[in-house]
């Protein structure tokens, strides 16, 4: 059977992708940030998954105001890196896992989560920057990402977005779906976005290190409490775009210590934790958890 063995949490700031693509990772501004992912790149090699289930948000790229799905699962066999206005990132095409994704879609919908099924979608920095951070710089033509990826897009652009609690519950449904797939597959689930940042208005540039640090503590050790944080707390404390952090709760809810909404199994092992300010306008947070 397929099994979720680990979760990865990371911010997905576009400027990080640009720094990698333009060869700026050794500049003083960027060095401390990339140093925080050295462990992660090695961990990724040592614990190579068969599939990554990657929770991210689209930033008005694949989804305009034509259609705004709250939860969208990619069931395609491949996804092109999107042109977000600066030209597509020079990274390999993302290979999907259409069979597992379709299985998860059917199972999760039967568990009362109304997913939108997407068979054609370009993927923006929300998906490719976490891959770049965890896998390093790759040649768009000669190289490939280490494994297939199932993109799972969450609407965090237009209010109301799903609550942290709903995201946490959804994570549990995704775990059940993965575990009902017959093939033996090692699956990682990634939650991306955040941490504190605000990109708009006179309050742009807001960063709240104390809140971020507390959120990371809760996410790791008391995820049930983290799931109960209401929207308004994210906006007020972590900035209007800090609300992306609800996506981390999907990945956390899929870990094996969570059953029936409660933390009752052996807690996962914290393999790595990192925090850095700033990357452009944003506080970067990162953690890796392994199931017991």
């Amino acid at each position, binding site marked *: 059977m397929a099994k979720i063995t680990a979760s990865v949490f990371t911010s997905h700031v576009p400027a990080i992708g640009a720094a990698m693509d333009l060869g700026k990772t050794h500049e003083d501004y960027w060095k401390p940030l990339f140093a925080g992912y050295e462990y992660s790149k090695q961990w990724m090699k040592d614990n190579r998954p068969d599939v990554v289930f990657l929770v991210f948000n689209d930033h008005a790229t694949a989804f305009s105001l034509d259609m705004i799905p709250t939860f969208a699962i990619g069931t395609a066999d491949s996804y092109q890196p999107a042109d977000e206005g600066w030209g597509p990132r020079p990274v390999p095409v993302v290979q999907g896992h259409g069979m597992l994704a379709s299985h998860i879609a059917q199972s999760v919908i039967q568990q009362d989560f109304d997913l939108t099924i997407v068979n054609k979608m370009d993927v923006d920095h929300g998906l490719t920057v976490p891959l770049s951070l965890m896998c390093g710089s790759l040649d768009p033509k000669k190289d490939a990402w280490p494994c297939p990826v199932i993109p799972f897009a969450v609407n965090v652009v237009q209010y109301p977005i799903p609550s942290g609690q709903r995201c946490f519950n959804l994570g549990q449904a995704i775990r059940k779906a993965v575990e009902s797939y017959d093939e033996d597959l090692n699956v990682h689930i990634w939650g991306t976005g955040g941490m504190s940042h605000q990109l708009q208005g006179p309050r742009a540039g*807001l960063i709240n290190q104390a809140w971020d640090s507390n959120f990371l503590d809760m996410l790791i050790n008391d995820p049930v409490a983290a799931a109960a944080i209401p929207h308004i707390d994210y906006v007020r404390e972590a900035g209007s775009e800090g609300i992306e952090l609800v996506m981390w709760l999907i990945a956390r809810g899929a870990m094996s210590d969570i059953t029936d909404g409660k933390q009752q199994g052996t807690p996962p092992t914290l393999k790595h934790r990192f925090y850095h300010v700033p990357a452009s306008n944003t506080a970067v947070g990162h953690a890796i958890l392994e199931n017991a």
Partner: protein
Amino acid sequence: MALDKPYLDVPGTIIFDAEQSRKGYWLNQFCMSLMRAENRTRFKADERAYLSEWPMTEEQREAVLARDLNWCMQTGGNIYFLAKIGATDGKSFQQMAGSMTGMTEEAYRDMMVRGGRSVEGNRRVGEHGDAQRPPQRQTPNRNT
């Protein structure tokens, strides 16, 4: 019954909710069109003519021409859509975000390097932080 909007007392911020989205529909869809290179070229060649092809309000067109992102947001724009205008102009996300704060580009960048804007005094309207100014248009009225 009124909708629950607990975010209206967050200073210096416009939450892009369903109502803002309805108001800004054509403005944001115009922005999306700039993801195609040929549309970027046409827009740059004659901005007013290109904008007139979209059923936006005249105020939305003025806000785009002025590159006043606070004003764009007031009229229903969303930052991820408006970012396509910035990309067309060759601006980074940091330059765009900074342009809404009334700070110079350099001052904004330095603030970020120092750890960003503090939340103290900036949680609720009426406190005494540095982000209490409402996100209103920064462009003066034109004399035409």
